[in-house]
């Protein structure tokens, strides 16, 4: 008897939570449909620069025009800077706009660096634009872009 009594109570509760869930789902679906979600790389860029406007074109990105193997694409980033204790490049961020994770690397420099330049090898999932963003000691930002055509994608997709 106790089992028979317990069952309908459980059903009613399940129904109630189910109905509430449906309403919530419908509400959230309506909200998502109303605006196009911002790509992850744009959010990342916003988080890095805040309210300031990066100056375009003062950062050099050396990348091949066509990368046959997206698993290992040579990259050099550099910024012209005196690299003194008062005027230097603090960091350069590398963003791959179409990678599953757009943040690729951050290089951090100091007055000892002598030259704001670094090189590495990166993965590119598909043809895309790569962005370099430099953070200067005076709070300004410099931005450079370059598109790379990728024949075979990296990131093990």
């Amino acid at each position, binding site marked *: 008897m106790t089992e028979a009594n317990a069952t309908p109570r459980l059903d009613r509760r399940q129904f109630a939570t189910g109905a509430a869930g449906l309403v919530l789902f419908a509400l959230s679906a309506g909200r998502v449909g109303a605006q196009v979600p911002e790509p992850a790389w744009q959010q990342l860029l916003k988080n890095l620069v805040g309210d300031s406007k990066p100056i375009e074109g003062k950062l050099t990105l050396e990348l091949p025009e066509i990368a046959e193997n997206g698993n290992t694409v040579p990259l050099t980033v550099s910024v012209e800077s005196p690299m003194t204790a008062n005027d230097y490049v603090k960091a350069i961020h590398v963003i791959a706009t179409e990678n599953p994770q757009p943040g690729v690397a951050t290089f951090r420099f100091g007055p000892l*660096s002598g030259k704001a330049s670094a*090189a590495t090898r990166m993965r590119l999932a598909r043809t895309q634009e790569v962005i370099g963003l430099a953070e200067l000691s005076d709070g300004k930002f410099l931005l450079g872009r370059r598109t790379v055509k990728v024949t075979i994608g990296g*990131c093990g997709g």
Partner: protein
Amino acid sequence: MNKPRVKLPDAAKAGDLIEIKTLISHVMETGQRKDPDGKVIPRNIINSFSATFAGNEVFKADLQPGISANPYLSFFMRVPGPGEFEFTWVEDGGNKLVEKIKLNVT
């Protein structure tokens, strides 16, 4: 994480701008790939590299899965005088590999 290789100039003078090239063996597993059974292979990368000279920071890199396997990094230093480099690679989970190399300052 093994076999770190570092290339420095054979000799340098104080005030010279020198390039430092480093390479280390590592799979840099992205965490995006699946094994044949469809299970995600857990992320395992070198997430940080740093270089100091005579105790002062020269260069640091925060790395993400978008860096290729066997990470290669090159960067510069204005030689402040004689001293020793200390290079540190840090893996997910906190394992560290430290390599110390003296720079031949003439």
